């Protein structure tokens, strides 16, 4: 048979020589190999204490962004829901009332915003579709849970911490991805 690569090697089926039948040299060789591994560096990362850095294009759990004054960016336009191939996003819009200007950036906001994380495929199309810089895929995992109902993330679960009250948590939640995107735009 013609081999596809030149890495082909015929199997040696000749009977074992006495040297091979003794087993001992082969065993000694094997033990030498395992022993040499004691001195090798092990690649383990002690997980909960240390984490491996994510790839720059990693798409994790969603966050709903706020602007610098802590106001929600989302205007409930529904473009993300339209873009979503898994139909995981649902929202209800509401009108901003006078006196709520410190909460919402524009006159319309999402009163209800839900993502079904069991449907979501983390493709990031919502992020691309958003004209208001309001939704990002962050660099965190989705935690596991026992109930299906727990995987429908409400607005409270998705909203990023307020940059005025807790700037550190805000920065951490935003991660590298959002800043990279800003630079690209």
């Amino acid at each position, binding site marked *: 048979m013609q081999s596809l690569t030149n890495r082909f090697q015929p199997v040696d089926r000749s009977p074992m020589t006495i040297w091979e039948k003794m087993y001992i040299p082969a065993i000694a060789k*094997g*033990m030498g190999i*395992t022993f040499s591994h*004691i001195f090798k560096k*092990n690649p*383990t990362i*002690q997980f909960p204490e240390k984490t491996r850095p994510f790839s720059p294009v990693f798409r994790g759990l969603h966050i709903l962004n706020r602007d610098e004054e802590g106001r929600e960016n989302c205007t409930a336009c529904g473009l993300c829901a339209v873009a979503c191939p898994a139909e995981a996003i649902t929202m209800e819009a509401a009108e901003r009332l006078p006196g709520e200007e410190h909460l919402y950036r524009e006159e319309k906001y999402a009163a209800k915003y839900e993502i079904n994380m069991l449907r979501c495929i983390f493709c990031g199309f919502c992020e691309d579709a958003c004209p208001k810089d309001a939704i990002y895929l962050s660099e965190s995992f989705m935690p596991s849970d026992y109930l299906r109902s727990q995987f429908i993330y409400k607005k409270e679960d998705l909203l990023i911490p307020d940059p005025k009250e807790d700037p550190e948590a805000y920065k951490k939640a935003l991660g590298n991805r959002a800043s990279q995107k800003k630079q690209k735009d």
Partner: protein
Amino acid sequence: MNGILLNIDWPFLIEKLVLIAIVVSISLVVAMYTTFAERKVAGLLQDRPGPNRAGPFGILQPLADGMKLFFKEEIIPNFSSKALFVLGPGLAMLTAIMTSAVIPWGDKIILPGGREMQLQIADVNIGILYVFAVVSLGVYGIMVGAWASNNKYSLMGGLRAASQIISYELALGLSLIALLMFTGTLSLKEMVVQQQQGGWGGLLSWNILKQPLGFFIFLVCAFAECNRTPFDLPEAENELIGGYHTEYSSMKLGFYLFSEYVNMFISSAVMVTLFFGGYDIPFLNEANLAVNTAAILGVVAFFIKIACFLFLFIWVRWTIPRFRYDQLMHLGWRIMIPLALFNMMATGAAILFFNK
């Protein structure tokens, strides 16, 4: 009545009971930490850290494992013979520990009252025969448990264990006969004393130098007797699920697994005693030291030697794959026994030739 009680050598009795308690608990602790060492060494050999979460460096891991086994649900299958099912693991553990009685753990120490205390539970003059007797009994623990489980996999495991241990016992015994020709004694204590005298601080009189082939046969057979890889066919997971302990759960399973490690410890101790000078420290004349210091150093040396053997057991386990059953029998009957016989003849001839 009083007379009988007074006639008993009470200090002797108490001394021996204390020694038994110490030896048994040390055996158990060492076996416990061998399970930990096994996992750590396996990690080292496979480029990973091994258990490191329970306590600093994971040193509480064996305790956690034990706790887990204790709290597991105990299942006794209703188609099993209940009495035998319970007896099995107990028997395995009992026979594993019993061998420790004749091993000389160290030289004598002098107690504060001026009383001499031998660091050996019983210096019987047929020590090595006793070891043999108890080791052969060890198979009953496995067989009884396997039979009582009323499970085909268990039965297969039990059968394999029985035939394997019986086959390798022959070669084990034959390899020892050659050794006994040299020593001329069956007492383990006396063998150690013999190995302490000789050139190079006793190193040259170690039996390993007189009987390298005998030692090799003994070592291979010890692996087979302990059911350790590459001879762990009784529990061969990929063919027999769990072998003889398929039906066992909770601490009964723990006893079976644990008795394997106790066996490893004891057979390492026997090998050290027979071939590596026991508690003898090479390049050190024990007679120059105070009796107690010498004894304690001797015990430490003994345990260091045992630790090396335990490492060997573990190292081999994580290197060599399991034999096929026919290969095992072939090795036992057609290679080990003729080799042991040859060794015996050669030794006999050498003794005859050089003593003339």
